[in-house]
């Protein structure tokens, strides 16, 4: 099997694995719709009070809400990706088996996570977005090229999201119990990705800082790409730079970590 085909098969496996849980997916669609509704009403109240907050008009702010609901699980911003499983394998020592496989550890998990992300985008992203467009007036573009450009940004966001969570998961080599770290990573991710409020609307220096951090690649970048609010080359360059830097950091940490692995005899 060629290497490319191997990882494609792993990605397909990741997709199918999540596609199996149909009730869970339906339940998730319901949840994303409910939270989208609540958030949309608070944004309406906010934008009524301050029109053009963060440079968005009300329709754009509402569009942002539903893009956020579509990407929350896709990018595992609040957790729920591969990281729990990888941490468990590190804790139990099963990771030793993975290291013997003729596949690259990072690429293996990346492929599986991309499959998962793709399923979550289709399974849990599309319907809430359609319902959102039904309930509210959104600023969705008619130009298919704009959608394609946004999808590229979503793909880059998947890479950055994976790279962050891979680093988080690898801390299990040192900490063994990763619950505390994942919790902190979750809080930071929700806040700095703009799930609570668009990063454009963050005030002053705080806004400058969060817009420069890697989490700005996750929700803000695809949203701005779809609504045509930022130059595409700049957006892609920002996301790409963070993806490369964080994936490289993950690779470095992985090589340090695997040198620590001691396989225990039974």
């Amino acid at each position, binding site marked *: 099997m060629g290497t490319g085909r191997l990882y494609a098969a792993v990605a397909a496996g990741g997709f199918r694995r999540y596609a199996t*849980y149909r*009730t*869970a997916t*339906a*339940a*998730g669609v*319901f*949840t994303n719709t*409910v*939270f989208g*509704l*609540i958030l949309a*009403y*608070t944004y*309406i*109240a*906010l934008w009524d*009070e*301050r029109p053009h*907050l963060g440079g968005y008009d009300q329709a754009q702010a509402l569009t942002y809400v539903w893009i956020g609901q579509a990407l929350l699980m896709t990018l595992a911003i609040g957790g729920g990706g591969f990281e729990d499983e990888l941490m468990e394998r590190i804790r139990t020592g099963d990771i030793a088996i993975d290291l013997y496989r003729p596949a690259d550890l990072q690429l293996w998990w990346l492929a599986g996570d991309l499959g998962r992300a793709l399923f979550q985008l289709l399974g849990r992203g599309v319907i809430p977005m359609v319902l959102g467009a039904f309930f509210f007036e959104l600023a969705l573009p008619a130009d298919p090229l704009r959608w394609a450009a946004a999808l590229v940004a979503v793909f880059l966001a998947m890479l950055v999201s994976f790279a962050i969570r891979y680093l988080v998961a690898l801390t299990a080599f040192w900490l063994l*119990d990763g*619950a*505390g770290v994942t*919790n*902190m990573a*979750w*809080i930071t991710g*929700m*806040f700095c990705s703009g799930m*609570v*409020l668009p990063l454009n*609307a*963050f*005030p002053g220096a705080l806004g400058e800082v969060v817009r420069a951090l890697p989490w700005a690649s996750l929700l803000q970048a695809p949203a701005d790409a779809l609504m045509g609010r930022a130059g595409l080359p700049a957006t892609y360059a920002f996301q790409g730079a963070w993806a490369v830097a964080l994936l490289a950091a993950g690779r470095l940490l992985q090589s340090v970590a695997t040198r620590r692995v001691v396989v225990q005899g039974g």
Partner: protein
Amino acid sequence: MAGSRSRAAGQGRVGARLADGLRAYRMIAGMWIRSTMAYRASFVMTTFGNFGATALDFVAILLMFSQVDALGGYTLPEIAFLYGVAGIAFGLADLAIGSMDRLGRRVRDGTLDTLLVRPAPVLAQVAADRFALRRLGRITQGLLVFGYAVAALDIAWTPLKVLMVPFMMLSGGAIFAAVFVAGGAFQFVAQDASEVQNSFTYGGQTLLQYPPTVFAADLVRGVTFVVPIAFVNWLPALYVLGRPYPLDLPTWVAFTPPLVAAACCALAGLAWRAGLRSYRSTGS
């Protein structure tokens, strides 16, 4: 005579079951506390994490108020008042029976069967499962925000308003607890739909953090008459704050939360029994 005797016996049975349930709950919860306390550093970290994760909602509100002076016509301290009550009420329910959403997993993997054969009420066992003191983090956070609200607001306190505060927190907790139990009952049927339950519990709490003026009238109607979480804080808190009522409701609804809570708990109990009776083991 005979009727009253059998009624008394019936009450005795219910009372005995309740005592049984509470005893089982206390023992299981105590076991989980001892086991978490074995790793004190981890306990402190996760409690702090719980506090931080819940505080994030309020940070979001603070961020909004860095840009505006009012939201839906309410000031920051007023919203903090609503937020604090919702947080405390939800926190109490979450502390007591926050593990109900794990029921679906137990149904799927068959571990519910082990609970069925134990000589203790199943509801008490499921509720106490993984009892986590770290959930005090959420209550603490709610209390802090509530404290800020009371200090910042200029409320004309009357004895009735003072009394209203503990009552709405407790009945609010009971209403949320009923939602948790009803959600658990639903999972007997739906199995892996814990997220539906989350949209009513966590989603409900998020909704109540904002004033009713923010939401569409139909949504307010839904959470008043269908899933009555409006009785957790909106209706009693608006009385304390001296604000007009949504949907032109009369003022006396402010005093109904304990009744609504009792009715919700009774209905949730019935739903739970129906769910449990419909349970068929996975048999794998």
